[in-house]
């Protein structure tokens, strides 16, 4: 597969390099990548006998270099997906939202070990975080600790020892990588401990159990269920299942053309179950044989995909007139042995019908100038289309003003006025938009309509001249003004703006919406039942199921 792997920082300098085959001169290889990369390059570049495959995540670059003689037509998809998964693996292992350069540098050895574990001789082995986490138990070196010794000088032997003292101290405060698991390992049968004598040579007593390795794990990777180790034990057996759907919706409001109306769904699970449980989940979509769902859903590796497709197989073999089919209809469920900890069970993408109203719909958007009164009004109305008993837990609407400020001469010395049926309206002066914060909005089917109006004053030349004139003649000092001087602020913010830049932004004026609706799924997906069976332990278990509908990054109306 791939001969060498690299992790680069944003300047394309290597942080980690790794060769799985006899490859000379790794630094030179990556140098030529740096030289040939351009911002428009596709994720595969070929330069003088080397193919570079890269994935960019969080300002880090994950690069695999393959010599053209190495592999006939190496499977790019595997490499790309591996790099992608490596990123998730690291993120998951470090328990961080973002991977940073510092984190990688501090844990360089750990990263190479993780790579070592996930790829053997260039052949990808496994990337499942939950299993690797059990396999490699090295302390994560959090960069918080770096503050401690950054001022030390390494040449001086006295400070050296001092810094190591500090280090030793700060070690105690390190977050254990798998908090909840730690205790469980301790409780786990001591018999196995004798088997794995050697790995346990840890220097820090306080972290002894951290590096303890379940002897089953070494064998897990060669066993049938490779994603779950034997001998997991929890005092309370819980299983959390979250159905999260994010709605992507893009409509051109002017000509009422819906450009996008999609649902991206995920079923996320957290499993804290003992032993080797088998779970059965029935989804209404699968029971109803929803063609679209079945076609567009992708499942985690633990799911035995045959269980979902039983009926299809039977039908093909025996023909439709068979009575036994009815039994199979009921049997269509997702059957799986879950990996330990967090994982994404299923991902799906559904298209909504064009006529299905969006979850939150914008019914009107107007800019009404009133030149007589020197005012301009922006009004916006929205309505909801989801179950009445639900309501949003978070709801904000971003209304662009750039167009308005360009088309009209707005006088900000007079305070703009905002009015809304619910929530409050905020004015972001630096980036030219209004934010309408609603938070809780009740559901409904079109009848729950809410609106807001914002009023800006237009520049009144006559009045301005008159006031200037008066100020000149009058002996009185100019009237005092309360509140912020918006016009000055605005000037300040916008003085450095590029005219072309604004022209670019003007082309795309979006009303963005952000919302979160708990307890409902936009697609109507429902978990009919969730059965947890563990034949040996027969414990009581607690399944939890939650639903949530979110906006996608792209939930907007082009105005």
């Amino acid at each position: 597969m791939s001969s060498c792997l690299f992790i680069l920082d944003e300047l394309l300098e290597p942080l980690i390099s790794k060769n799985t085959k006899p490859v000379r001169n790794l630094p030179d290889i990556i140098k030529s990548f740096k030289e040939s990369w351009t911002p428009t390059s596709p994720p595969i570049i070929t330069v003088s006998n080397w193919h570079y495959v890269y994935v960019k995540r969080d300002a880090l670059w994950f690069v695999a270099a393959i010599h053209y003689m190495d592999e006939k037509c190496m499977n790019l998809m595997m490499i790309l997906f591996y790099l992608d998964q490596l990123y998730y693996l690291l993120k998951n292992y470090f328990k961080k939202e973002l991977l940073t350069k510092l984190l990688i540098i501090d844990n360089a050895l750990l990263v190479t070990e993780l790579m070592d574990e996930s790829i053997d001789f260039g052949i990808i082995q496994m990337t499942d975080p939950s299993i690797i986490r059990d396999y490699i138990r090295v302390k994560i070196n959090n960069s918080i600790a770096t503050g401690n010794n950054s001022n030390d000088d390494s040449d001086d032997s006295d400070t050296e020892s001092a810094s190591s003292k500090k280090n030793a101290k700060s070690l105690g405060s390190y977050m254990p990588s798998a908090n909840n698991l730690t205790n469980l390992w301790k409780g786990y049968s001591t018999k196995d401990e004798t088997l794995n004598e050697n790995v346990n040579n840890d220097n820090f007593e306080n972290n002894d159990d951290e590096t303890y390795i379940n002897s089953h794990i070494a064998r897990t990777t060669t066993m049938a269920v490779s994603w779950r180790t034997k001998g997991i034990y929890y005092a309370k057996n819980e299983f959390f299942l979250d159905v999260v759907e994010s709605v992507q919706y893009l409509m051109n409001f002017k000509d009422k053309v819906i450009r996008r109306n999609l649902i991206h769904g995920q079923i996320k699970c957290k499993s804290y179950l003992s032993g080797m449980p088998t779970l059965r989940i029935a989804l209404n979509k699968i029971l109803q044989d929803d063609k679209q769902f079945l076609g567009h859903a992708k499942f985690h590796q633990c799911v035995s995909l045959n269980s979902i497709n039983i009926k299809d197989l039977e039908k093909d073999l025996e023909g439709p007139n068979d009575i036994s089919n009815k039994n199979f209809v009921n049997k269509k469920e997702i059957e799986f042995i879950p990996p330990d900890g967090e994982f994404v069970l299923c991902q799906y993408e559904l298209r909504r019908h064009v006529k299905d109203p969006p979850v939150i719909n914008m019914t009107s958007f107007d800019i009404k100038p009133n030149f007589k009164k020197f005012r301009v009004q922006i009004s916006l109305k929205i309505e909801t289309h989801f179950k009445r008993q639900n309501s949003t837990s978070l709801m904000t609407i971003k209304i662009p003003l750039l167009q308005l400020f360009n088309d009209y001469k707005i006088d900000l010395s007079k305070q703009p006025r905002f009015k809304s049926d619910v929530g409050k309206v905020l004015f972001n002066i630096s980036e030219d938009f209004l934010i309408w914060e609603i938070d809780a909005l009740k559901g409904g089917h079109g009848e729950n309509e809410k609106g807001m109006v914002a009023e800006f004053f237009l520049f009144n030349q006559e009045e301005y001249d008159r006031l200037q004139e008066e100020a000149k003649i009058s002996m009185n000092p100019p009237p005092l003004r309360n509140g912020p001087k918006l016009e000055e602020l605005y000037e300040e913010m916008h003085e450095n703006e590029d005219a072309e830049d604004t022209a670019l932004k003007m082309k795309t004026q979006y009303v963005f919406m952000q919302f979160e609706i708990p307890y409902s799924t936009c697609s109507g997906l429902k978990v009919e039942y969730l059965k947890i069976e563990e034949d040996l332990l027969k414990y009581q278990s607690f399944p939890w199921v939650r639903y949530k509908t979110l906006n996608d990054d792209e939930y907007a109306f082009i105005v």
Partner: protein
Amino acid sequence: MSDQRIFTRYRASEIGVDLQNSESKKLKNNVLGRKTALRKIIANLTLGNVNEMSYLLPEILKYWQIEDDYEVKRICHEYIRKLGPSKPKNVQEALPYILNDLKSKNQKLQILSLKTLVVVPSPEFFNEAFEFVSQTLNRLSTVKDELTKEAIYCISVLDEADHDRVLPLIDTLMDIIENESKEPSFIVAALNVVCIISERNTNMSNMTVRVDIAIDILEMLPTLNEWEKAFVMECFTGKVVPQTHMESTNIIQLVIPQLQHGNTSVALNTLRFIFYLLNYVEFTTEELSIKLSSSIIALLNKPPELEFLILRNIILLLLSRENSILNLDVSYFFVEYNDPIYIKDTKLECLYLLANEVTLPLILEELEQYATDIHIQMSRKAIRAIGNLAVKLNKESADKCVECLLDLLEFGVDYVIQETISVFRNILRKYPDRYRNNIDILVNCIDYIQESEAKNAMIWILTNYSDSMHNCLEIFKVFSSNIKDETLEVQFSILNSSIKFLMRYGTKESESICMEVLKCCTEEIDNPDLRSRAYMYWRLLTLLQTKDNHMTNETVLDIIDGDLPVIELNTKLDPLILQELELNIGSIASIYLKPVSQIFRLNRPKLLISSPVLNPDHDSLKIIKSNSTYDEFGNESKNLDNQRMDRRSHEMVSTNSTMNAIMEDYDKPAETINQLKGNMKSSSTRQSRLSRKPSQLLRRLTKKNHSNELIIHFLSGNGCLMFFHI
């Protein structure tokens, strides 16, 4: 505990001091100090400070001996791995330590040492590794653990070093594959290694997997880890040869669920496997085609890098399956404003390929939007695509495209206009008379034109439609008067056109222009090509004036102003190439749409292995409705015999038709410009069709001003995606 200080360049002596210091201190602290120093070494090796760090080998060896800590061991191994490939002699001393680790009881350490052994390219290391691997394989029947698996995978690397020595081990591996009693992951490992080896060594006979074994392995799929599944699918493609229709449909049924796997590479490999198997079926069901299509669409919802690869493969599939099994909705390929550029490009190509009479209005609407995009490159490509669609599709569709282009002209931005004019030339080549009325509009835009390509196009249009314009010579003068400042291409065009005008009209005005141009080309401009062409024309004209030759006006006119062949866009690739590309879905070949032999020269091309059910022609694959019952199947199969006959006759026809194809030069690299001589559509190119045929997908035909000269470009701007030199 560490920080960025570790990640700076050090001298060997500095680290040496660090290490010595850590020794003298009390036990508790020196461990950390030493580790920090060791880490510095690794960081320096990553930074490329290899020479300096190689001095530290003795230190490393010292700690190797005395340290039991796993982390220190790891650092030592890492050191050897980084240093070994470039200085195999230096690390020789470390061999006993590595072997010591290899013999230890700790499996993790053993694996670590095996990996290190393999990385150093020296015979001693190789011998040890080989010895160890063969030992492990020998006790395979008793011991089954992680180490054994590693040993199996290790063979693939050993093979690179010494193929002949590894050969006997392959029999053992084949044993593992065929003997089902072993654990699934071993079988996959063995299968994988055998595949890799057999594909790397072209002298080995082609490896195939028996169908029954394949089915056995596929039945264990649910017990395999995700990557193992992906490898199984990969290995089987091209290796399992079903002998009957039933066999292949059975296998397809077995693997279909894997299309829904969350791991993209499993899904894509499965897709490829199914497409491969579809070569060995007599008919397929509509249900399958729906499943395939929807799983492809579902794959698109991925991070951009992965999406890019999927899109490239969709292009490939669209090219190879003309009566496509795939039924993709165009709207999935609409460009989004936040797509990276490479995705936008690729989506554009997909849209182009998906366009047909039905989808055209929708696609045109989109393309028109992109054409007015803020991004200039994107906008140009969109216009180019519209133009190409006009040439590719039928007359009615061309009308729509032209209408759209004329709308764009009114948009009034210079690059849009220039691009539109360049594109219009191709449309006029295809339909010389259909859009005669619109020429005026084009000519009116002459003031916007600055780029040489647009100028070329404009000059060509002026020349070809001069009869419908009263003042064409006047306009032409604008160009001819500053011939000196133009680029070479435009200079050629001006020269050609001036001669054409002279020959057509023979007026004073045209003569003076022509003479001026000829003079300028021969005397003032230094380019030898231009000069010799000008001389050629000059002689031709002189010949005409001498009385005693057989040249008539007509013959000369025929030479320089002959009828041009009608252009056609041919998006078809050679079937053999397509077959090979289809076997390489998801590989690098699919990115460049070039056969593997061009990217990796030493590899043998993958070809379909023949079998009684092999169906070489994709177009004749019959898709039956899913609701057909068993009885219909019977009828179906009767029909199929006829079908097969049809197919054969169809083949005959198709070979004939390729003989008559207008463009036969598509097997030459696009950059070595093809000179397509009018009637020389020879079949001589067929001989080399296996070896080198780049995609002529989205190839844009540009008629260079002179007759019978075609230059072939690619739609994708800089062309970086479409063709590549190794």
